[in-house]
């Protein structure tokens, strides 16, 4: 079986260890890249570069030489200058899924782990920030191998709870970041749109690159409900009795409008907006990251 299967949330769910999950996701992703028209792209952004005179011979990757008869040396951290921050929404709503293998939070964690893995592999410093109504925990960015363990360890301990105050949390984050960084936000963004945009603009104004991973549950995108349902908002505990069939079209139009509007606003502000749902493979998110990485590398 191809390793690409690991890009599927249903498959990755069977792997309990987060480090392995991240590893499998990234491997599957990279394997897919090799086989795809993005081959060159992947090489360019791989962890190797061609040997050039003056390089230390101990840095030559003999395994690659064995495969390709060409000399490649491993890159050095000093060659990149991308400091990544994985910003994870911890709010209660992130813990939701209707009938998928992974909740939005699990999906986001998995994705964050994969990105962390990828970044650490490329010796990019990566940090982790979690928030709900405020910043809850933060792990300063490092590029050492051990950093991956720390990141994954923290991620695996997280539990979604509480309300979201996106604007406040992002305001705190903005003041935390000293250098120009790549901020990768994982959230379902079920918040007031104007405050969200304002917060993102503020971040962007500080010179940070932002990738907004908008993670929704597959049910939130397709609205697969029928009949009379009483819907409960896990954060506010608000209840609403609806006729799901009658509501579907309206709801889908609303959610599409929201995402489209968000995408447009982000594009206008130079923010990468990635719309995801928990049924999607992880590569979409990773490609987006790589695009951003290339643009800055």
């Amino acid at each position, binding site marked *: 079986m191809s390793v690409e299967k690991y890009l599927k949330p249903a498959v990755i769910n069977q792997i309990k260890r987060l480090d392995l999950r991240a590893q499998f996701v990234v491997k599957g992703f990279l394997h897919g890249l090799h086989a795809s028209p993005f081959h060159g792209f992947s090489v360019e952004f791989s962890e190797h570069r061609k040997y050039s005179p003056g390089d230390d011979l101990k840095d030559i990757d003999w395994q690659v030489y064995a495969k390709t008869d060409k000399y490649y040396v491993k890159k050095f951290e000093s060659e990149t200058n991308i400091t990544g921050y994985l910003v994870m929404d911890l709010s*209660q*709503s992130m813990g*939701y899924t*209707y009938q998928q293998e992974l909740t939005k939070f699990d999906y986001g964690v998995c994705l964050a782990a994969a990105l962390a893995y990828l970044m650490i592999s490329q010796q990019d410093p990566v940090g982790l920030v979690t928030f709900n109504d405020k910043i809850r925990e933060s792990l300063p960015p490092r590029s050492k191998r051990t950093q991956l363990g720390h990141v994954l360890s923290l991620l695996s301990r997280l539990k979604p709870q509480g309300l979201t105050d996106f604007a406040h949390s992002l305001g705190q984050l903005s003041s935390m970041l000293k250098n120009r960084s790549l901020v990768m936000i994982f959230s*379902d963004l*079920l918040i007031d749109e104007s405050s969200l945009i304002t917060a993102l603009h503020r971040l962007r104004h500080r010179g940070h690159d932002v990738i907004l991973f908008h993670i*929704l*549950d597959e*049910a*939130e995108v397709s609205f697969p*409900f*029928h*009949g*009379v*349902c*009483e*819907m*409960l*908002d*896990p*954060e*506010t505990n*608000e209840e*609403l*009795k*609806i*006729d*799901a*069939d*009658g*509501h579907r079209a*309206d*709801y889908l139009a*609303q*959610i599409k409008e*929201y995402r489209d509007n968000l995408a447009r606003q982000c594009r206008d502000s130079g923010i990468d907006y990635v719309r995801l749902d928990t049924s999607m493979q992880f590569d979409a998110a990773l490609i987006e990251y790589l695009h951003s990485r290339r643009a800055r590398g």
Partner: protein
Amino acid sequence: MIWANGMILGLGGLLIAIPIILHFLMQPKPKKLVFPALRFLKERQHSSRSRLRLRHWLLLLLRCLLIGLLVLALAGPTVASREYGNWLTLGGIGFSGLLVGIVLLAAWFRSNRNWVLIGILVALFLGHLGYGGWAATQLLGTESGEILGDGQAPVAALIVIDISPRMQYRLENQTRLEVAQEISLWLISQFPLESQVCVLATDHDRAFFSVDVAAASRRVETLETTFVENPIPAALSDGLTLLEKAPQERKEIYIVSDLTKQSWVGDNTKPVLRRLEKNPEISLFVIDVGVEQPINFALAALELSSAEISEKGEFTISTQVNRIGGAAQRTLKLSLEKPDSTRPIVRDGVTIFPDQLLAEQTKTVDVRENSSVTESFKFSQPLPVGTYHGRIEIEGQDGLAVDNERYFTVRVRSAWKILAVHPVNVSPRNLISTIAPMVNRELGSSQYDCTVLSQAEFLVEEKLGGYDAVFLLNPEPLTEPIWQRLTEYVNQGGGLGIFLGSNAAQGGLADPSFQSPAAQQLLTGRLDQQWFTDQRDLFLSPQDTSHPLYKSFRQIETGVPWNRFPIFLHWGIEPDDRATELPTQALLSFSNREPAIIERRIGNGRVLVMLTPISERAVEPGRRIWNELFIGKFLPAWLLVRAMTAYLVQDDVESLNITVGQVASFDNDLRQFPESYQLFQPRSDKPPTVLNAAANSLKYRFTEYPGQYRLKGVWSGSPLLRGFSVNLPASSTDLTRVEPAELDGVLGPERYQLAKQRDEIQRQQGTARVGQEFYGLLMLMMFVVFAVEYLMSNRFYAGR
């Protein structure tokens, strides 16, 4: 609407409560779901809730409808009217089709079309269109003869049988009545067991249900034609009252008639129409036993020049021979019966009438196709005083025999004695030439024997009792005793005519002698003042012409040129207050609404006071004339004075020749006639009855048969014969068929079913009795509603 299982309706109706109870008490609990993106739902919350509620109600409605339709189908509704049934069918199909159409549209516009479902729905929709089209063609008039369901439930039936004289029309050796009886008997034999039957004839019979079917049959068998018919609408009205109260669910009316116009005309047919409309569950059949194109000879009513003549008088009888059908020749025969003092007599229970003839005349008439010929017979032979009966008949066979014979009675009597009193300055000529023209007097045939006295002579005349009537022509003042004598004369039964004029005035005002109490009693009030106009705009103006005084005017009523005979002067009367004690009424008015002729009854006699004279005194220079009543060619006053004279002498000649159902009324002065009579009806099988005089008159109401009615009494030890003739009105043998529109007007268009043959009756009876059933339609509708409910609830509660 008729229900085969009416009980189910009540019980089933309660079942409809089940979905309602379930709806309110056992509303399905919604599925609880956690859903973080709730805010996107909230924006449409209101419209969604309304939609949700609407769906709930719609579903409830569909479920109630489902049970309702099931209950209806089981209750077995039928309607008596095919048209009504077709409309209901069309309505049901329309409703069902609409539901299918809506579901089809909903299925079509769904994002994920289910082609199998759409195919089924399209097929269903087309099926509805086809069924609807069929029902529409049914409405356009095609009739199905199929007998549906069970028609054996007991019925309450009313059989109205037309027994008018026209039903005696004979064709193929059967009268219409015999055909009607045959069909009615067959109908009765067809009724389901335990049915209640009322046989109602059109002879003012009372409607009642026969004890059993056999009794109803016997009633039919004994029916005879009547000559005093009750129009069918009136009979139907009585029958409907009975039928409305009947407990049976199925009610039927059969009208067996020859459909001649006369049977269907009525004064007021609207109430019947309204009641038939109000009771649509009553099936109505009209069974036509008539003949589309009858062939018949008929004698119209006889016209006698006079039914009362003097001994030397003569009379002429004319009549019209009417022909329906092709040209033909017939012999018309007049026969005059010779009075026989020994007859009629009853022997062995049978009345034997006089059989000898005094005279017989025949005439041959040729009548062209559908036309008439008038013929007359003249009889000038001197006859002794007495009552003479005769008849005119068309000889030979005919479709309707009853109108081939007409009867007449002529009375020969001594002339009425009239006394005309006139002042010397007033001529009695107008009166005498009016009531006893010279020509009659010369022939000795005058009805009135006039004695003329001047007022001075009259004052000494003492034998007023010998006169049948006395006229005072423009009288001069009379003394109180004379007024009293006149009052006494009237009281005894005499007739007094007073024509007031210029002689009643003294210096322009009424002479006091005309204002004395005795004068006022005769003049009906106080002579008041004279009314004058010289504009020729005042004339006699009859208001109510129902009084016998107007008999001669009735035929020419609208053409009488009253306004060509102006009145310039007339007296006014201030009525006294004795009108209740002495019946008083104004019979004729002037055009200024003042009374012109006033009648007062005193004792057995009558007084007529005319407030303008018919005889003026000689015209003097400077004196105004009172009127021009006797100036001109056609003189209404001439007819009026003759009528006044006949009225004053209490001539009962009108009752000598009457039509069936009329009351015969005769003067019976006990000084001249016996008090009691034996009355013999025209039918020999009817025993004579006793008729007693009351208040100097004889009255007989039961003139049910055409023919001669004979009165036999004893006066001064010898038999005294009187009598009268009764004929059918010409209209009662008019065979003109009723128009369909007229029939519709009586029964309501499309309200009844017309049949002629037994199989037609049977078919229509079957259809109407079971009516149009809706079981199939209701089941179809139920299926459609069930399918819609299923689809809707499936979609509604999907994923539960």
